[in-house]
């Protein structure tokens, strides 16, 4: 076992997620594993440039982390127990307390404003607001011909006993939990959903990744590059398997586009060499041919760059 607690990787439908931001930070800063952030950021939800949790890991990253005993796999569907009444009650009371706290704060603020309206906002603004309120009440009393309605809302907002009713008017913040860790009936440390070995998950069918020679070659090459200190990202947009970065991709450009060859004698068409060289040069990268030798368990590298003679 590693010195620290292993990082839980949440497995669901043969994909590994990381939901805890601290875990994401550890993976990135300590272990050089970046993954891909792919969830909608709650307050910037109409754009695709910046995305948030979950972090989705490449299968190679998962295999690397588990083999290095940095992380363990959690079978997420099995980690949820049926919430007991006690758990549910405690969750609900916690939420209700938070809501009531918010409401009482809002009410206090409101009351304070009513008592000393000049303090909260500037004189000009408060005067304008008072005028507006007066106009509104006058308008309402004119239309309803009674003037009872504004008074009823006024009283209900002030009486703390009727908080649930006035909550519709006051409004409070609802928190949607992101990670399951916050739910008391989520037990990821349970024996039957923690896996430390890839063989076990494969037997169970919840994680099957390196199952072909090509996938094994991918894992080995990923591991070799990572052990050399490179950061690695997905290279599908550059015509290869990986992008190889000299440092954190947040700050540095990648130097290589790597393509995986499962055998040192696998066929390589000249057209591929041209295409790789062309694309790599156009994007200021060298293409890296990575050959995996399954017998000697070694990786050999060959880089292609445009010669640039005229």
């Amino acid at each position, binding site marked *: 076992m590693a010195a620290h607690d292993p990082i839980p990787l949440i497995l*669901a*439908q043969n*994909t590994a*997620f990381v*939901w805890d*931001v601290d875990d994401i930070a550890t993976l*990135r800063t300590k272990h050089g594993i970046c*993954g*891909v*952030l*792919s*969830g*909608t*950021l*709650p*307050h*910037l*939800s109409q*754009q695709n440039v*910046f995305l948030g*949790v979950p972090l*989705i890991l490449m*299968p190679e990253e998962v295999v690397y982390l588990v083999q290095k005993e940095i992380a363990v796999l959690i079978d*997420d*569907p099995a980690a949820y127990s*049926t*919430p007991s*009444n006690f758990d*549910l009650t405690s969750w*609900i009371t916690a*939420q209700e307390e938070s*809501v009531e706290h918010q409401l009482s704060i809002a009410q206090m603020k409101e009351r304070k404003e009513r008592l000393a309206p000049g303090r909260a906002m500037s004189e000009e603004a408060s005067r304008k607001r008072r005028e507006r309120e007066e106009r509104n009440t006058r308008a309402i009393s004119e239309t309803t011909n009674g003037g009872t309605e504004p008074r009823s809302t006024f009283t209900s907002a002030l009486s703390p006993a009727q908080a649930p009713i006035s909550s519709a008017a006051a*409004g*409070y913040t*609802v*928190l*949607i*939990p*992101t*990670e*399951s860790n*916050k*739910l008391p009936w989520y037990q990821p440390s349970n024996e039957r959903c923690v896996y430390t070995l890839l063989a076990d998950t494969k037997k169970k069918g919840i994680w099957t990744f390196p199952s072909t020679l090509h996938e094994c070659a991918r894992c080995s090459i990923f591991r070799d590059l990572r052990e*050399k*200190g*490179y950061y690695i990202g*997905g290279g*599908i*947009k*550059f015509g290869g398997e990986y*992008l190889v970065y*000299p*440092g*954190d991709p*947040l*700050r540095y*450009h990648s*130097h290589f586009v790597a393509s995986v060859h499962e055998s040192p004698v696998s066929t390589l068409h000249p057209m591929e060499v041209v295409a790789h060289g062309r694309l790599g040069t156009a*994007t*200021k990268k060298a293409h890296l041919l990575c050959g995996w030798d399954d017998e000697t368990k070694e990786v050999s590298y060959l880089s292609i760059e445009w010669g640039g003679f005229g």
Partner: protein
Amino acid sequence: MDDDLEQPTAVATESQSYTRLDTGIGVEVRIDKGHQDEADAEGEAEDGGLDWTKLLPASARPIIPKRGEKEFEPRFSSLHHSTSDVPAPTGQGSSLQQQILHLSRTAMFDAIRAPRTISSKLVSYGMWYPELGRTHVTVSRGVHFATMGHSAPRPVQNDMITAAAEGTKTAPDSASEKLQKRLELLPEETIYLVERGSMLCYKSPSVTNATPPLTSIYLGNIPGAPMSVQQVYTECISRSGLTLEKYQVYAYLKRLGYTVTRAEAPDPYYHLPTPYKPTSTIVESPSPSEQAPPSLLWRLTHHLHHLLSKLLSILPSFHLLPPRLSPSPTFDWWHPLPTHPHPPQSYASIFAALRNIIPSGHKVPLHTPPSQKTDNTPATTPYRIFYNVYKPNTPFRKTTPGKPDFQVVVVNARTTPMPTLYELTDLFDQVPEVPPPAPRKRGMTTAASSTNKSLGQGQGQQQKENKEGTAKSSSAPVAQQEQTRSVSENTRLWLSWLRWPFSFLFSSPTSTQTGQKNPKPNPFPVLKMGKKIIIIAAVDSGNISFFRFGQGSFEEWPMI
């Protein structure tokens, strides 16, 4: 023109300085323009130098910041050199670089740590039924439900929910039989709404406890276990044909504002646009009431059509006839090409005749080798249209969705090879033809609607134009232009007056009229766009690439 390129000073290193917002430390970053030319910028746009520092502070949230700058590589610090003989391929970088990296990382982690909070006045509530694969929306708020969710009649087993949500009391004994329409969300819609922090979703209790369910009036009053975003992911993906890749494409398009619906109805209550019928021309059959899933009958006819066309393609080979040719009685097989008394023929006419004999274009059925005769495609292929996509800001009605703007196939880039010709052809058979791109506005060109003119017409027109071109090469406007260059305005007027009575000599009125009314449109935009378009989204563990496949109609645009 390109002054920037000519002057050497423009290429010289140009230091750009920008300060970090939240620290107050002025950081000057020198960017060597030698490393950052425009090709680099284009390539790295995908590679993404994300500057998370610009996301903060939280008070300025809704502003979408620009991508930041990246550096070439971490510099080797002297400390690193002294400790190891061989310099590591990746140094830690200078302390300045480390500082910036640290700031970027902290900003990023802070930004993604933001909790999902929403005002109680805006939040929606839902109940996820795992056995059904749907979320019942009990409280729907916000604009999302104009384009998401569909109503489905369900037997009201658990009348508590509806009663609690609507605040009414229904008789519990009669409720078990009743069907009630309710708003339901598909799995991807559920995840999307929960993930963007717009809905609090509960999980329906699998075993109905005898104890009264616990609810909270503050939180939607729903008896069930609240689900985290993580649990919603775990529960909803792999339900109703959804995969993680498909969800990612869905969320990507939704975040951009597109309206995304399923292309195949996941249940009989889901409304689809009127299916495109490949055999006939697009006939709007106004029957929104019979919303039967189009697949079965349509696929049967589709198969029949295929079989027939295959049979036809085999049969004529016995007679040495090319397929799909209806030999006119005057057609002479010994002289397939039109022979004129005078031997010199133009290439154009020969090619035109050849085009009549040799079938071409996508209407000709694909040749299927006998080994592949068994229909291999529709059941197993990953290339099936999954989403209908509508552009933002177009009127959309959930009950009668119109013709989609795009149709998207989602595949896993790791496991799926490129589509075969058969798979592509099958896809194109399911999509309607798109109108040709509007011609670029230049002068008085009118919108050319001549893409579906038949081959013979196009050829004929072209020939006519050629003839006219050669006969009257020096037409009036050209001559006029030539003259105006040399002579002054006065004489030009004079000349035009002079020429007026003889204008029929200079130009035939018919040719100019046809030339102006129906100019031959530029074929290349049309060819480039194709007549049918399909979008294929390839997803590789979080990276989405959209590819557009167009079926070019080269047979309709003969170049000669």
